[in-house]
C-alpha cells in the first residue's frame, strides 16, 4: 500500500498541476499569438493524457487495496470517509471528459473557446486533490462520527468528516506540493535539453513557464508547511515529537537538524538551543509535548527516519526557494534566465529533489501517525486483512509498479523523440480523437 500510494502520489500530482501549466502556455500562446507556446500547450496536453491514463490504472488498484489490505478500516469507517471519495469520483469523471474534449479541440475549436474547455480540467484536478487529501486529513484528525460503547460507528456526519481540523492545512499543503513537483519536474526536463545544447525558444518557454509557477509556489509552500507543522504540534503532538525527536515534554526544547534519534534524544546533528520551542509557540518558553506523553506502544516507529524525512523535506524546500530567488533576481535585472550553466544544472535536479521532498512529506504524515491508521481511534494492525498470502501479493505489486514506472517513462521518452523528429498525431495518445479511417490497401 505504501509503495502504490507513493507511486500514485507522483502521478496524482502531475494530474492535478500539469493541466494548469498547459493552460498557462495556452494562454500565453493566444495572448501573444505565439505559436511556440501553443505547440508546448498541445504537447503537454498529450503528456497529461498519458499520465492521466496511468493514474487511472494505479487509482483502480488503490481502490482495490482499500478492501484487499484494509477491510476492517474500510468496513468500519467507509461510511464516514467514503463520501469524500465519491466526490473525488465525480471530479475524476469530469477531468477525464474534459481532457478528451481539450485534446479534441486543438484543431476543431476556436482559440479561446478551446482554452475555456481546459479550465474544467484544472478545477477538477483541484477538487479531486481536495477530496482525496480530505480523507487523509480525516485519518489524522478523525471527525464526523461517534463511537458507541460497543465500538460501532454512529452519528455519522459526512460534511464534518470532510472538513475536519486537518483539512485546512493538509489540503493546501498537498495542492501546493503538486504544483511544486510538477513545475520543477517539467522544468528539469527542459533544463536537461538546454544543457545538451537545445537552446531554442521552445526549450526556454518550456523551462520558464513551469519553473515560474514552481518558484512562486515554493515560498508559499514554506509558509503553509510551517503553519501545518505548528498545527500538528497542537493536534498530533506525538507525531510532532517524532518528527523533531523530542523525547521528554519540556520547555526550551532545542531544534536539531538531522542527527541520530535515540531514546536519550538526538545524537549528532546541528543543535539550535530553544529553537524548537520557539518554532512551536514563538517563544523559547513554549512547552513541547514529548514522546513520553504516551505509552511506548502509542509512539511512532523509526524515529530517525521520521526526523530525517522531515528535515530533508524542509531542507529541499529551502534550497528550491534559493533557486527561485536566483531566477527572480536574474529576471528582475536583465529579463533573462541566469546565464550560468549551474543554474540549468540546479534546475535539472530540482525535479527529482522535489519528488524526494514530496515522498518525505508523505512519510512524515503516514509514519508519524503510526501506530494509528485513524488517529487515536484505530490501530493499523487492527485494520489489516486476515486473508493469507498478503506478502505474496505485495511482492507482485512491487514488481508490477516497477514495470509500470518504466513503461510510463518509456512512453514519454518515445513521445519526446518523435516530437523532435516529426509532429505526433492526435490519435497516438489516450483520450485523443479517432483518426481518420486508414485508406484501404489494395488487396
Amino acid at each position: 500500500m505504501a509503495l502504490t500510494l507513493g507511486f500514485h502520489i507522483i502521478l496524482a500530482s502531475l494530474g492535478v498541476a500539469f493541466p494548469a501549466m498547459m493552460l498557462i502556455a495556452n494562454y500565453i500562446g493566444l495572448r501573444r499569438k505565439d505559436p511556440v507556446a501553443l505547440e508546448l500547450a498541445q504537447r503537454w496536453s498529450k503528456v497529461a493524457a498519458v499520465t492521466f491514463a496511468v493514474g487511472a490504472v494505479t487509482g483502480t488498484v488503490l481502490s482495490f487495496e482499500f478492501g484487499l489490505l484494509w477491510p476492517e478500516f474500510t468496513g468500519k469507517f467507509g461510511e464516514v470517509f467514503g463520501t469524500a471519495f465519491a466526490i473525488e469520483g465525480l471530479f475524476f469523471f469530469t477531468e477525464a471528459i474534459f481532457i478528451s474534449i481539450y485534446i479534441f479541440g486543438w484543431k476543431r475549436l476556436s482559440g479561446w473557446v478551446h482554452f475555456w474547455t481546459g479550465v474544467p480540467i484544472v478545477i477538477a484536478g483541484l477538487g479531486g486533490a481536495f477530496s482525496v487529501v480530505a480523507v487523509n486529513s480525516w485519518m489524522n484528525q478523525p471527525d464526523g462520527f461517534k463511537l458507541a460503547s460497543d465500538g460501532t460507528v454512529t452519528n455519522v456526519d459526512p460534511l464534518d468528516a470532510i472538513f475536519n481540523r486537518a483539512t485546512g492545512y493538509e489540503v493546501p499543503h498537498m495542492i501546493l506540493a503538486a504544483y511544486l513537483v510538477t513545475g520543477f519536474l517539467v522544468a528539469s526536463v527542459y533544463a536537461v535539453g538546454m544543457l545538451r545544447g537545445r537552446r531554442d525558444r521552445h526549450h526556454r518557454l518550456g523551462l520558464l513557464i513551469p519553473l515560474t509557477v514552481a518558484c512562486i509556489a515554493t515560498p508559499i509552500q514554506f509558509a503553509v508547511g510551517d503553519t501545518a507543522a505548528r498545527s500538528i504540534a497542537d493536534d498530533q503532538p506525538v507525531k510532532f515529537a517524532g518528527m523533531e525527536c523530542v523525547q521528554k515534554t519540556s520547555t526550551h526544547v532545542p531544534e536539531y537538524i538531522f542527527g541520530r534519534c535515540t531514546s536519550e534524544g538526538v545524537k549528532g546533528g546541528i543543535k539550535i538551543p530553544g529553537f524548537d520551542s520557539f518554532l512551536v509557540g514563538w517563544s523559547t518558553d513554549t512547552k513541547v509535548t514529548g514522546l513520553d506523553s504516551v505509552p511506548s506502544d502509542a509512539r511512532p516507529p523509526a524515529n530517525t527516519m521520521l526526523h530525517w524525512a522531515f528535515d530533508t523535506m524542509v531542507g529541499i524546500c529551502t534550497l528550491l526557494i534559493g533557486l527561485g530567488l536566483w531566477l527572480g533576481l536574474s529576471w528582475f535585472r536583465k529579463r533573462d534566465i541566469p546565464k550560468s550553466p549551474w543554474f540549468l544544472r540546479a534546475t535539472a535536479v530540482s525535479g527529482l529533489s522535489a519528488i524526494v521532498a514530496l515522498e518525505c512529506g508523505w512519510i512524515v504524515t503516514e509514519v508519524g501517525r503510526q501506530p494509528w491508521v485513524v488517529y487515536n481511534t484505530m490501530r493499523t494492525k487492527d485494520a489489516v486483512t486476515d486473508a493469507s498470502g498478503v506478502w505474496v501479493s505485495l511482492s507482485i505489486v512491487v514488481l508490477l509498479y516497477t514495470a509500470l514506472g518504466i513503461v510510463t517513462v518509456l512512453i514519454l521518452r518515445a513521445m519526446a523523440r518523435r516530437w523532435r523528429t516529426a509532429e505526433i498525431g492526435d490519435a497516438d495518445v489516450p483520450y485523443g480523437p479517432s483518426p481518420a479511417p486508414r485508406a484501404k490497401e489494395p488487396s
Partner: protein
Amino acid sequence: MSEADAVAAVLWLGATMYAVFGGADFGAGFWALVAGGGERGTRPRELIAWAIGPVWEANHVWLIFVLVVLWTAFSGAFAAIMSTLFIPLCLAALGIVLRGSGFAFQRVVTGAGERRLAEAAFAISSVLTPFFMGTVVGGIASGRVPTGNAQGDAVTSWLNPVSLLIGVLFVATGAYIAAVFLVSDARRYGDPELERYFANRALGAAVAAGAVAFAGIFVLRADARYIYDGLTSEALPLVLASAAFGLGALVLLWRGARRGVRPLAVGAVVAVIWGWGAAQYPYLLPKTLKIADGAAPSETLTAVLIVFGVAVAVVLPSLGLLYTLSQRSVLEEEAEG
C-alpha cells in the same frame, strides 16, 4: 423504495456500465488473443488497438465508482467480499495493471519479440481479469461470502461451479459485446473484410454465451438455489427479455443488418445484470446480509445520492459535448475525404 435500495440501484447502474463498456474492452483483448500469430492476426489486432486507443483504460472509472459506492454505502459487505475473495480479486487487479501496461507498451517498443510479449500480456490479462471478476460475482451470488474479516473459505468461495460458470460467462459476453462493437468499428475503419470477420465472430460468441447461460440455469439450480428461485419468479421477465434481445441480435447479425445490433446486444447483457439484481433482492450477500441491514446511516446514503445527482448533472452534459464534437469531426473528415 428505501434510500438504501436507491443507493443499491446506483451501485447496480455502475456495475452495468462497467459490464458493458469494460466488458467490451476486455472482449477486444480476447479477440486479440485468438486472432492468431504472425501476419494473419495483424490486421484484426490493428483494428482492436485503434478502437481501444482513444479511451485507453478509462472504463475502469466505472469499477472505481462501484468500489467507492460499495465501501461508502455498504462498508460491511465491502470488507466481507474483499477479504474472503482476496485471491481472485488480487489476480483481477494484477490483470488490470498488466493489461494497461501491455497495451501501452505495444505502442512504444520496437523489437518484434518485445512487441509480441506486450501483446501477449495485454491479451492474456484481458481474458483472465473478467474471468476472475466472474468468479467473485459467482462467490457472492452463491452465498459463499459471510460477513466479517475473511470469514469465508479462501479457495472454495471462488473455485466452485457457480463461480466458474459466471467466470466463463463474463469472458463470453465480453467477447460477444466486443465483437458487435468491432463490427461497426471495422465499418468506420473502412474495412469490409474485417467487418465480416468480426460479424462471424459475434455470431459465434453469441451462440457460445447463450449456451453457457443456458447451462448456467442447471448449475444455479444445483448450487445457488436462492438465485435460481429468484430468476424463475420475480426476475423472470428480465430473463425472458434478455433471451429475446439476444435472439433478436443474433437474427440481425445473421442477416447482416447495419443498425440495431448494438442496442439489442447491450440490452441482452443489461437485462441479465438487472435480472441478477432482482433475483438477489433484498439481499446484498445472499442469505447473510440484506441491503437494509448492511447500509450505512442515512446521512451517508443521502450524501452519496446527492453526489450521484450532481454527477449526473455535470457529467452527462459534458459527455454530450464530447459526443457532439466527435460526431462533428467525423462528419468533417468524411466531407474532406
